[in-house]
């Protein structure tokens, strides 16, 4: 019993160590620092040279989300405790698929979505030149409005230089303050680095902010770097002509890394370091197990099915986090099973899952809607669905005949779960029954879920099948 408890504590310690490694950018991107051809070293060279040579630069970092450029990390959320982690990670997956923007906002408030490579570069440079760099961070989601952005810049500048800040200042004042500060800092050999996340959102409207930023950088006394981070590949094309002409057109492209390098990354992250506080015997045993797993053919399959969908670093990190969570607590070792479990939890199909727990009546409604769509009825509403339902009931004489109000309740439930939706936004003041609706799931998904659902009456499947092959 005591031995088991000891093992469990070792295991939870190991989990903590591993999670710490996964969440530490320095560990994750340690490979970047060494090689000369990575974006990391290019960006560092660029920023460092503009600090030391007192020149102005602007650079755009482009690439899909999660390539280490911008990171939306769920891992931070999940870090604290296991039960919470289950809730949050599941919620995360569902959210993720349901609507990308919502989840972005959501994480933005909980964890600040920093820019990994930019962060590392800036951290390193701050170490090299203490006191010579001030970083202003703006996010297009929050500061796309020009006035608000200049105010935020002024606020951060004041904060950075221990000046008092007034909320009352007009935007003209703030702009002038910014330009003055650029000049003063340039004279004092200080570089101001503007990190504009979601750069594409700054390129809306008249682009006054970008213009005044880039134009202020055309003077000799200022010393600033503008780093734009965007997932839109055509972000520089969004700029107006006169703004684009002032932009110095440096682009760094972030692409997902290859499968080999991802595997190396995983090996690097999951291996326990020798100098950890854990007992060395355990560490050795653990590392041996990990190596054997990595050499397994099955693992290659898991990895490829993971990267087929999404090969970005953040995706891998999320996967590894789950792997660690599925660690066998008794032995404290990872097994192939934990990898499989993690993979299946990564590949959750939320629509299918929510189809699984529907009631029979709701399934009936969905099938009826599907039949209606197959009959090429372009527009239908609850009343039409009820008619179809009646006709089905009449034809098959099943026991699942429910009253109109019950059906309507089920219909509303389906609307809430966003398995069906209104066809258009018109007629908001119309009664729900009469508003045209649409099915949001495909017939293939519906058929599959019916097959999987054990309580589903055979009639339903027949209904779906028959009209498909009819």
């Amino acid at each position: 019993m005591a031995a088991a408890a000891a093992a469990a504590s070792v295991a939870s310690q190991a989990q903590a160590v591993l999670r710490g490694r996964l969440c530490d950018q320095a560990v994750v991107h340690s490979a970047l620092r060494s090689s000369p051809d990575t974006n990391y070293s290019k960006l560092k060279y660029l920023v460092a040279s503009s600090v030391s040579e007192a020149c102005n630069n602007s650079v755009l970092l482009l690439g899909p989300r999660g390539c280490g450029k911008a990171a939306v990390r769920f891992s931070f959320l999940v870090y604290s405790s296991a039960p919470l982690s289950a809730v949050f990670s599941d919620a995360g997956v569902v959210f993720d698929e349901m609507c990308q923007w919502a989840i972005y906002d959501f994480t933005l408030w909980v964890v600040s979505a920093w820019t990994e490579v930019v962060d590392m570069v800036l951290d390193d440079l701050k170490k090299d030149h203490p006191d010579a760099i001030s970083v202003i961070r703006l996010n297009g989601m929050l500061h796309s409005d020009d006035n608000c952005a200049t105010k935020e810049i002024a606020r951060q500048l004041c904060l950075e230089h221990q000046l008092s800040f007034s909320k009352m200042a007009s935007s003209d004042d703030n702009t002038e303050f910014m330009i003055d500060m650029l000049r003063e800092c340039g004279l004092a050999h200080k570089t101001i680095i503007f990190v504009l996340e979601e750069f594409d959102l700054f390129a809306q409207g008249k682009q006054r902010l970008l213009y005044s930023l880039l134009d202020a950088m055309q003077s000799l006394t200022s010393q600033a770097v503008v780093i734009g981070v965007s997932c839109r590949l055509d972000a520089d094309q969004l700029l107006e002509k006169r703004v684009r002409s002032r932009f110095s057109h440096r682009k760094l492209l972030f692409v997902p890394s290859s499968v080999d390098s991802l595997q190396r990354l995983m090996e690097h992250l999951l291996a326990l370091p020798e100098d950890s506080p854990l007992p060395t015997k355990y560490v050795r045993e653990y590392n041996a197990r990990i190596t054997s797993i990595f050499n397994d053919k099955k693992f290659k399959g898991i990895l490829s099915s993971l990267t087929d969908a999404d090969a970005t670093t953040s995706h891998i990190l999320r996967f590894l986090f789950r792997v660690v969570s599925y660690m066998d607590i008794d032995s404290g070792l990872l097994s192939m099973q934990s990898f499989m479990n993690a993979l299946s939890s990564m590949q959750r199909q939320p629509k299918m899952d929510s189809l699984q727990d529907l009631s029979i009546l709701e399934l009936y409604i969905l099938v009826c809607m599907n039949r209606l769509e197959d009959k090429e009825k372009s527009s239908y509403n609850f009343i039409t669905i009820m008619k179809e339902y009646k006709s089905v009931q009449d034809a098959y004489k099943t026991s699942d005949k429910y009253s109109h109000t019950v059906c309507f309740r089920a219909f509303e439930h389906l609307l809430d779960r966003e398995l069906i939706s209104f066809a258009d936004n018109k007629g908001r003041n119309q009664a729900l029954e009469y508003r045209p609706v649409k099915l949001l799931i495909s017939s293939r998904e519906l058929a599959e879920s019916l097959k999987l659902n054990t309580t589903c009456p055979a009639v339903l499947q027949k209904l779906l099948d028959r009209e498909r092959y009819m």
Partner: protein
Amino acid sequence: MDLSATPSRSKSGLRSSPRKPVAAPAVAQMDLSTPSKPTPRRKPKAPPVAAPMSPVTPSSVRRSSRLLETPTKVTSETPVKPTPTPKRKRAAPSPSPKTPTQSEPKRQRQRQRQRQQPKKPKKRAYYRKVVYDGGEFAAGDDVYVKRRDGAESDAEDPEAEECRVCFRAGAAVMVECDVCLGGFHLRCVRPPLRRVPEGDWACPYCEAERAGKAIERPKPPEGKRIVRTAKEKLLSSDLWAARIESLWREPDGIFWAKVRWYIIPEETAAGRQPHNLRRELYRTNDLADIEMETILRHCYVMSPKEFKDASDQGDDVFYCEYEYDIHWHNFKRLADIDDEPETKEDPGDEPYNAGNDYVSDSDEDSEYDEEEEPTKCSSARTHQSHALAANLRKGRTYGLQKIGIRKIPEHVRCHQKTNLEKAKATLLLATLPKSLPCRDKEMEEISAFVKDAICNDQCLGRCLYIHGVPGTGKTMSVLAVMRRLRSELDSGNLRPYSFIEINGLKLASPENIYKVIYEQLSGHRVGWKKALHYLTEHFSGGTKIGKQANQPIILLIDELDLLLTRNQSVLYNILDWPTRPNSNLVVIGIANTMDLPEKLLPRISSRMGIQRLCFGPYNYRQLQEIITSRLKGIDAFEDQAIEFASRKVAAMSGDARRALEICRRAAEFADYRVKQSGHTSVNRGKNVVCMGDIEAAIQEVFQAPHIQVMKNCPKFGKIILVAMVHELYRSGLGEVMFDKLAATVLSWCHVNRELLPGYDTLLKICCKLGEGKIILCEEGTKHKLQKLQLNYPSDDVTFALKESPDIPWLSKYL
């Protein structure tokens, strides 16, 4: 030995000559001969004897020498009563000071122009120039100032420094050690030197100290005091240096000067830093009023550039690059443009009041009134204590002193720039070129237009519209013309005018332009409606704004198209003013679009007139000329490389900014390559920007990254893209429903024995592609009803995915 032939800094030149011109202003002395670069030097480990580390511990020799002075003299000089003493000693052979009585008749302050006797004796009379004790001092000159508490006698002020070996100040050529600043006769150095060495030279003692050897410096012969020059006294903080800001005479007839102190590195909070130059001083923001008689004589504090050019200037040359804030103990570079510290110190009087100076320039010794400068500075002081928000108007002007660096970073000084780095610096957009090539004709036209408008006595209101694509030098040309005109104005060939520059894109709203114009004219802030009212009155001949009411006003509006409002009232007003009689207004509008006047309402475009100037895009020859003119004297680019870049840009846009950026980027690539390969490669050919670098830079600028991203998509992403192309060709419609697309993808995967992805996985990938705008898609909540469309030509997809190693079967669907 021929002195004039010595290229490097030789000491004897001016110092040994007893008749140095006293009153020549600093600038006039500048001799633009061979520039010897002030290379930054590190401090030797042990402090050199010549300049003690801190003012607190001067060498004992000094102290004793000071005590040797007759103490009575000191008491007589402490200015209980401001008795004048001769500051300036004409290298008299005997070191005895002139007695006060002797100098009394001399003290008749000769003003430069006698006609200007102070008319109002009750008031202070301000002067531009004062001849005082035989020296002519003007505002802006740098001078040595006695320390008041002075244990230091100013009796000795030797012109010639003594040799550190033989301790005699002969006429023979001396050479200055670049480390300890000591002077040596050429023949006294072991081994003796035949001529002044080129470049840096360190004396044998400093060399030895640097090498770590202990070596005895020659001691002066018994009984002989070391006579120190003013420079040495200053550097050991026994003297002060200051810059005269203004000169005036009190009602009681005593001359005073407001001075801005210089400070030596030892007296700053950071102390002397290893990379400080020996002759470095800092300008402070500390101002004080002193009596003129404490001023000793001129010294010359120079900006880095002047210092570089000044090779044979004698001993009183100092180097000043930074300003030191005495309250916050931090440093700031002196801005190059900063000619008049007043405008920087106190923005309360607007730069346009600087027109004041032009007026007063014409008749020289005009008198200012009392209120001007002293009050300014005192108000600056009091405001400092106020806790005003920095981003407000008031606080912005006074709170920013805090910004500054504690220590001057080493990399600024101790870094010899390579050719590539120099090239990068000159290619910066911010670097103002010395000349603007290729725009002579346009500049002629602009300057003719402006002159025409100003020189007419009538100053008929006029308007010029300048258009051209971005980066063709429109604003730069206008500003260059204005600079030229301003210098013409300074020389008095032109009527004075005010110049207002406004950028349409920097205004919060178009109406704010009234506010800005009014503020620049009058220095007051009002709301835009009021400003409009005043301005209209001003231009229609009513009450005038500001002091220079009758001067013509040149209004430059950059990005004119941004002032368009719905009813175009702003543009109408601005363009209407010049047509009023007596408006004295000239408007120069700059915008990108050629047909802006045609887009405007007829009543506006008719007021805009027909005078237009087109800045065409540069052709490749012009671009080439622009780049080569910038890179003159720096051997960092292959000629073909420049031509290639300029041809490429000329073919695309003719944007000079872009051409410069490409070249800079290429230089960066080359620099990066050189640095990565290590400094050992001395191979000359490699350290030049070649075609490959330009190619890479152009790739980066012009090539869209989508092909690269498509190639690196995850597997299902690639399949989706190919399926979209497939659907596009099959249906002929750009848009495809997700439902259909998913069915195609699944059937392909089924046929080709791939793992079947889930619907939701596919949807997620679609959304990801949509985020990068590789495809355009609706939001993911629409699920199967989501419409998708390729954002790039289908050929690009075909090109990118034709050969993908991980999914060989994909190509058959293309």
